[in-house]
């Protein structure tokens, strides 16, 4: 299967994961393998198993239930569950007559044998051999360089390990390597670049095929009982195959030429004289023109293709080199389009065009629908947690075709077999099956797909009440809520989902815990009441009024898509959305909004908006508009245009705020000024591996001519104004291939604020460099990633100066009728800019990472669930010198609905932090994760209060799970800020903070154990205890006394 839309993550999954899984499997041999050979006489070629002719009637098999994606690990399930799934799928396959499968999943040997012995179906072992990147000596290389000696050595060694592991496994038919690897010759090297352009790819292909030959030759020495092949992309480089691969037994190829394979048979015979097997071919079952499922045309194409293959097989009087093939594919895969989103929806987006499929091809339009290639449709899970499959017309057609092997027939027999297929009847069968399945799923315009019930009971207390009331001081409350999930599909082009939340009681957990549902807490306000007393109107002030039963029902999230001819439209409301950092938004103007649980604490409903993505002639255009397109955004629209020019990839982005928000993202978070930003970026990777990014930005031009005051070194106060150049920013980044070294330089004028600074490893990056997207700076950052074996060392440095320093506090005064205005720290509301997170800094850090299983990368966002190393860790720290003080931060003061400055800034100070994360999987049923932090860091708003705004803290977090059923997690923090952002904003430090949480899963979640989805969808019961204490005598915020605590008993029931 070509990697047409596979991202780096898929490449990781299909490449590294497969290898790592196989290498980690126990060394089990099944010493009863069949002897498989190829045979040729004047009638053509045959494959033979133990001497008997064997024609491969195959499918490409994969199993990914709805709601899952490429990370789904079937063989990480319990043996019982695996058995149920295999029996379901392979039972259906056996009924169809399938005798062989090819799969991207590396099936463990014992299950290869199980499939063979229970269902009579043999397997092709097909390592992808670096097709989508490979881990070379601990370093992930996205574009495998087959000319690199070290890469060749690693690949050769690993492939031999594969062969050794499977060679005696009963049920193995053949070894195959790669997957259209000839389409992925994307590496660069000086040696290659010095060749004329027309010869460069051929030179690369030589390295590829010569390596294939080495791998196969070595493999045959290990496994003499199985043939060896490759999975080539069509017949490209067939001359090189002929020249360089004398050991090849079978020509394996993925072919998408439409209903006929045209001259492929003759060319293969002439050039190679080898038997031919198609490892992929077929058709999707969605008609991009009529925009509906099209079972018949899929079946027609497959029928024509198989008829041609049967005619080209042994003894039919033609080339005789067809020995079988694998239909792409067995089941639909619902993750293919967006890969990590809308996994519960079968998208109808056509992602590429192929004129060979005439039934739905139209000029300038895509017609290949990635999520619709199955000859069985992907159904919902049944009561045993097995994803059901609904046979399409193609299944029934293939059932008739596979009832006979061409090796049992003569030419007339083949003609009769295909002439006897009653397509109308079989299509009717497929359509009836579809209707029955839809009926079974109760598919309506709007349908309830599931939901969950949550309940909790809370017992809480604090020192002040205990001192006052003794044993009666504990208070009890309870809460309940329900989530109902709906899907809707009003027509073929529109589909979506939404979740409705319904509150019962709301437990009182604040201030120890804020949580989703707090919107329904009773609200007390004071108001003035007017009443008439003795004929006079009297105002009674400050009368308390309490509102109960507030906001009991709300839409929790919503998303819908419309697929049009010229553009796709997506409406989103409180569903995860990602930044455009990988699409040229180097300035980070569109921020990522994926922390849905974090927003739920404050009942924030970001992101909200509408995205229109162009197609066809408009495919490079994206338009985004909404009241809050990312968390904290002002109402705005954004426009993005990508293009290629002068060998650079360019991206133009304009962002325009339409209004200013009237509240922050949480009760104290500030609103930001209405703003306008326009950015242009360019990037290019040179053949020598050096990557260059250039960018410019115009930000806040509306602030030009605004005035600000500043002070020079002599103490003179100046009134200055924003000039044109102060709205400009420039950025350049060079990344060298050697140890992934990068240097980044940035100049941003006083008001040239950008957005988020993207970090190398995203949200899991351990870096504490004080990155800031704000303007008023000149900055240089450099770093590298040094890999040695399973270790990775990441040194990084940052140096930043301000263009204008923060203002000190000099009180204004009047002497003799003369005003001495003094200065005050600026803030971002009343001044065009302020020195805050963008303050001067000199920072350096070093992190060491040990992770022996690269397939589950240590810094992946879901590594907590996926890390499979017995032991992996990182450790490191960051030291930052802040040589100057800051201006004043703001906070949002809800009673007046405005930002208010703290009034003073943070002092110059050196801060530091060290941390370590440790993951342990001592055995398959236990996992432990520890996070340890020690730091000396400033607050993020209030420079006053405890320790003058600086915390000298220690934190220890842990989580443990046993048998993927029992979970125990918690933390201990000493002298740290409280758990939510506003604690750090207001410098609220506590001497001790504890949390202990134990929970138990009750039954399966219906999804893969140990996954993120498993956490979210599990039915569970648990208990959580929290404790927070101030230092003895700490007078600040002591209304609850020196300590407070609560215990929460909770349960979640999924349905």
């Amino acid at each position, binding site marked *: *299967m*070509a*990697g047409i839309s596979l991202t780096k993550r898929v490449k990781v999954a299909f490449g590294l994961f497969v290898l790592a899984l196989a290498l980690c499997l126990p060394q089990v041999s099944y010493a009863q393998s069949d002897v498989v050979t190829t045979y040729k006489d004047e009638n053509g070629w045959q494959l033979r198993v133990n001497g008997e002719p064997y024609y491969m009637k195959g499918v490409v098999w994969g199993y990914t239930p709805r709601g899952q994606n490429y990370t789904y690990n079937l063989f990480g399930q319990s043996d019982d569950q695996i058995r149920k799934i295999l029996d379901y799928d392979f039972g259906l396959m056996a009924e169809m007559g399938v005798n062989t499968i090819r799969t991207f999943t590396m099936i463990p040997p014992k299950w290869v044998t199980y499939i063979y012995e229970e269902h009579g179906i043999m397997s092709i072992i097909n390592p992808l051999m670096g097709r989508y990147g490979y881990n070379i000596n601990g370093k992930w290389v996205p574009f495998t360089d087959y000319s690199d000696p070290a890469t060749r050595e690693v690949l050769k060694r690993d492939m031999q390990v594969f062969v050794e592991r499977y060679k005696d496994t009963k049920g193995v038919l053949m070894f195959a390597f790669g997957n*259209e690897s000839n*389409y*992925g*010759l*994307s590496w660069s090297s000086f040696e*290659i*670049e010095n060749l004329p*352009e027309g010869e*460069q790819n051929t030179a690369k292909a030589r390295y590829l095929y010569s390596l294939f030959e080495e791998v196969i030759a070595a493999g045959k020495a290990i496994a003499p009982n199985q043939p060896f092949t490759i999975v080539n*992309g*069509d017949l490209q480089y067939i001359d090189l195959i002929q020249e360089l691969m004398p050991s090849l037994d079978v020509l394996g190829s*993925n*072919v*998408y030429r439409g209903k006929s394979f045209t001259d492929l048979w003759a060319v293969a015979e002439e050039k190679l004289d080898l038997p031919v097997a198609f490892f992929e071919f077929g058709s999707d079952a969605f008609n991009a023109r009529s925009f509906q499922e099209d079972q018949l045309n899929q079946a027609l194409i497959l029928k024509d293709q198989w008829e041609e293959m049967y005619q080209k097989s042994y003894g039919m009087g033609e080339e005789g080199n067809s020995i079988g093939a694998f239909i792409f594919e067995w089941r639909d895969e619902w993750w293919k389009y967006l890969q990590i989103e809308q996994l519960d929806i079968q998208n109808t987006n056509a*992602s*590429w065009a*192929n004129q060979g499929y005439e039934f739905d091809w139209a000029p300038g339009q895509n017609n*290949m629908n990635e999520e619709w290639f199955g000859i069985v449709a992907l159904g919902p899970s049944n009561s045993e947690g097995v994803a059901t499959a609904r046979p399409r017309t193609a299944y029934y057609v293939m059932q008739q075709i596979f009832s006979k092997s061409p090796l049992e027939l003569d030419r007339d027999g083949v003609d009769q077999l295909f002439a006897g297929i009653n397509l109308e009847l079989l299509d009717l069968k497929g359509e009836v099956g579809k209707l029955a399945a839809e009926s079974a799923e109760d598919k309506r315009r709007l349908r309830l797909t599931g939901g969950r019930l949550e309940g909790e009971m809370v017992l809480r207390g604090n020192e002040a009440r205990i001192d006052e009331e003794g044993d009666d001081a504990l208070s009890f409350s309870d809460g309940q809520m329900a989530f109902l999930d709906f899907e809707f599909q009003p027509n073929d082009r529109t589909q979506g989902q939404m979740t409705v939340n319904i509150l019962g009681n709301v437990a009182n957990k604040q201030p120890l815990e804020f949580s989703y549902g707090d919107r329904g807490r009773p609200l007390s306000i004071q108001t003035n009441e007017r009443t008439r007393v003795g004929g006079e*109107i009297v*105002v009674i002030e400050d009368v308390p009024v309490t509102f109960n039963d507030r906001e009991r029902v709300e839409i929790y999230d919503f998303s819908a898509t419309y697929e049009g001819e010229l553009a796709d439209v997506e409406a989103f409301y409180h569903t995860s959305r990602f930044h455009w950092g990988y699409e040229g938004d180097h300035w980070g103007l569109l921020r990522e909004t994926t922390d849905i649980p974090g927003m739920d604490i404050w009942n924030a409903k970001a992101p909200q908006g509408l995205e229109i993505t162009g197609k066809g002639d408009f495919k490079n255009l994206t338009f985004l508009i909404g009241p809050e397109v990312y968390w904290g955004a002002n109402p705005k629209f954004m426009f993005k245009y990508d293009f*290629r020019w002068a*060998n650079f990839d360019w991206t133009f982005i304009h962002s325009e705020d339409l209004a200013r928000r009237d509240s922050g993202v949480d009760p104290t978070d500030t609103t930001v000024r209405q703003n306008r930003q326009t950015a242009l970026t360019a990037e290019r*990777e*040179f*053949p020598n591996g050096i990557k*260059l990014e250039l960018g410019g930005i115009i930000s806040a031009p509306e602030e030009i001519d605004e*005035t600000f*005051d*500043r002070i020079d*070194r002599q103490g003179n*106060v*100046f*009134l*200055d104004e924003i000039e044109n150049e102060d709205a400009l920013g*420039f950025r350049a980044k*060079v990344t060298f291939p050697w140890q992934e070294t990068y240097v980044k*330089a*940035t*100049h941003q004028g006083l008001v040239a604020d950008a957005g988020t600074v993207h970090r190398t490893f995203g949200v899991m990056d351990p870096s504490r460099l004080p990155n800031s997207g704000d303007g008023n700076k*000149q*900055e*240089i950052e450099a770093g590298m990633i040094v890999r040695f074996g399973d270790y990775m060392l990441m040194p990084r440095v940052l*140096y930043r100066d301000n*263009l204008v*320093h923060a203002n000190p506090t000099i*009180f204004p*005064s*009047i*002497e003799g*009728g*003369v*005003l*001495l*205005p*003094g200065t005050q720290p600026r803030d971002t509301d009343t001044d065009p800019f302020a020195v805050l997170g963008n303050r001067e800094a000199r920072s350096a850090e070093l992190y060491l990472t040990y992770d022996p299983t690269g397939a589950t990368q240590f810094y992946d966002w879901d590594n907590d669930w996926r890390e499979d190393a017995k032991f992996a860790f990182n450790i490191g720290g960051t030291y930052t010198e802040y040589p*100057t003080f800051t201006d004043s931060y703001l906070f949002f003061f809800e009673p*007046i609905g405005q930002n208010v400055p703290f009034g003073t800034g943070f002092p110059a100070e050196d801060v530091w932090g060290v941390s370590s994360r440790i993951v342990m999987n001592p055995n398959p049923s236990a996992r432990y994760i520890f996070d340890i932090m020690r730091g000396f860091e400033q607050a993020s708003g209030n420079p006053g209060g405890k320790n003058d705004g600086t915390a000298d803290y220690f934190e220890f977090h842990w989580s443990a799970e046993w048998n993927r059923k029992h979970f125990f997690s918690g933390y201990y923090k000493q002298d740290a800020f409280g758990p939510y952002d506003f604690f750090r904003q207001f410098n609220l430090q506590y001497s001790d903070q504890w949390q202990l949480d134990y929970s138990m899963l009750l039954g399966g979640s219906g999804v893969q154990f140990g996954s993120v989805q498993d956490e979210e969808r599990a039915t569970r019961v648990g208990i959580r205890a929290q404790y927070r204490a101030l230092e003895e005598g700490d007078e600040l915020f002591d209304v609850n006394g020196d300590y407070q605590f609560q215990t929460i008993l909770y349960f979640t029931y999924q349905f």
Partner: protein
Amino acid sequence: MKSLGFMKMTKLNRDETRPAGIKLLFAAVLSVTALVLGGCSNGGERDADDGIPINAITLPTDVVLNLACEDVGVHPETCVLDDPENPFATTTIIEFNPNFPGLDNKFELFNSIPAGPSGAKARFYLWATALARRPSGENQFYTALALHELFDANSNVLDEDELIREQAKKAYRSLLDNFFGSVTVFECCPAASPDGEPVAFAIPLNELTADNLYRTDATGLRRLVPGDPINVLELLLEWGYSYQPASPPNFDDGVIVAGEF
């Protein structure tokens, strides 16, 4: 499947195998270096010719107020911040902080402005600036009072300053409309307190406003509403307030009530 992947990769290969473009790369690296060096040299200083020194600003002593906009000095208008004649436009007006009563605040500035008409214009700018920066009843009240002062200074028996009169009335009305429940705090009478410290007491600004409008003795200024004082009561009724004036000699027992009448 094949088609797009093939085309994409072929295109990528073709593009990526062009000559290295060393000159361009070299230029980019040089640019980066220039940026870095530039960044290290400035040290937070603007050029010497940027901005104008404002170490000392002479306050106005005249009484001619040019209104920067129609509602200058009336909440929520903030155009006073852009008024080139405003000496306080760039000055941070520090509000009184009850947690830190000893810190300098706007009243220090207020008290430093010369009393009498020569300070009225400066007082207007001080309080109007404070109001624009921090909407509060106190800031609105003293803005109105300063306008009242200017009206008095510019008026005589034959010729009253109508423009400033209306501005002052708008400012007083804004207090009632926008900050009806606000108070200001006075300190008084240390001799009478047990510890000899001044005693703070709050005064409702709505009553103070009505008193200022109604009684010339309250301010020592010419009344904004010409004619009989009962005209003040009618004006207040027109604004939506009823006022029962204080009963001399007690001048703090007036009652003003908001509502529809």
